[in-house]
């Protein structure tokens, strides 16, 4: 059975507003793409990966970082401490069914991001998790995004 392609206009518009507000408040477009791509890897969202890998390259994220993102913890100095703290938090918030968000992961992020930026970083992880869910559930194929 083919899957529905419907995404209610009001739902889609609120989701876009959420993503935009979170991204704006984080104020770091390159880091935002790393976060969004990592969550999309964990949630296996092909459409989202295709779209955000394209956007990441537009923002000048290096091929090295994109290649090694799935193994960022073992990637040495390819990612700095701030990026690593953000990625660890992204993973904890995305894989919620296996446990809570550990204090050490949260505290580490809080060391690198003030409360305002942290609230928006959390918002961004939530926002991409939203897109991952509506795209995977409806099996939206990759390739639909054009810059």
């Amino acid at each position, binding site marked *: 059975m083919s899957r529905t392609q419907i995404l209610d206009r009001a*739902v889609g518009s609120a989701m876009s507003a959420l993503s935009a507000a979170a991204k704006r408040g984080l104020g770091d477009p390159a880091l935002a793409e790393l976060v969004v791509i990592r969550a999309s890897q964990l949630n296996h969202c092909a459409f989202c990966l295709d779209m955000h890998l394209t956007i990441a390259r537009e923002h000048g994220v290096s091929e090295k970082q994109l290649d090694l993102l799935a193994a960022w913890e073992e990637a040495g100095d390819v990612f700095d401490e701030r990026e690593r703290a953000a990625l660890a938090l992204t993973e904890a918030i995305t894989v919620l069914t296996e446990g809570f*968000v550990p204090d050490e992961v949260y505290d580490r992020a809080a060391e690198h991001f003030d409360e305002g930026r942290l609230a928006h970083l959390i918002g961004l*992880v939530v926002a991409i998790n939203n897109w991952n869910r509506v795209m995977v559930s409806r099996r939206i194929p990759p390739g639909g995004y054009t810059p």
Partner: protein
Amino acid sequence: MTTQETTEYAPERPARLRWAQHAPEVYKAMLRLETAARQGLDPTLYELVKIRASQINHCAFCLDMHTKDALTAGESAERIVQLSAWEESKHFYTEKELAAIELTEAITVLTDGFVPDEVYDHAAKHFEEAELAQLIAAITVINAWNRFGVTTRMAPGHYTPGQHR
């Protein structure tokens, strides 16, 4: 006996971050999304979906809120209690509710795999297309609230039914 025994519970932990105050535009978009996602869905079903996703994501604040809202709306304690074991207590729910709960689980536990065809197709049998699209949106939105709730450690126990309507 004059000794009065009082039960000592563990202390309540404070929230980590008042995220809505620090990110008001994000919060506003979430409220818009919530309003948009619930359109066209049966409120009784909607609360069951919210409770089941919140159980799987371990969101204490969300469980506090949605079990209270469900009870206030006339949901039975029995159906709420049985929800985490719904596979063994199917006779408490309609076939349509069961299809929605199953889809809720598949969309919530996304990191373990995709949304299986049999789960999607089962839901598609019970929901017409536009309603199914809203159900997917609703499951997505409670997952979003769950993520804010757990990450910022919003404390359960203080919710009054209808407070966030």
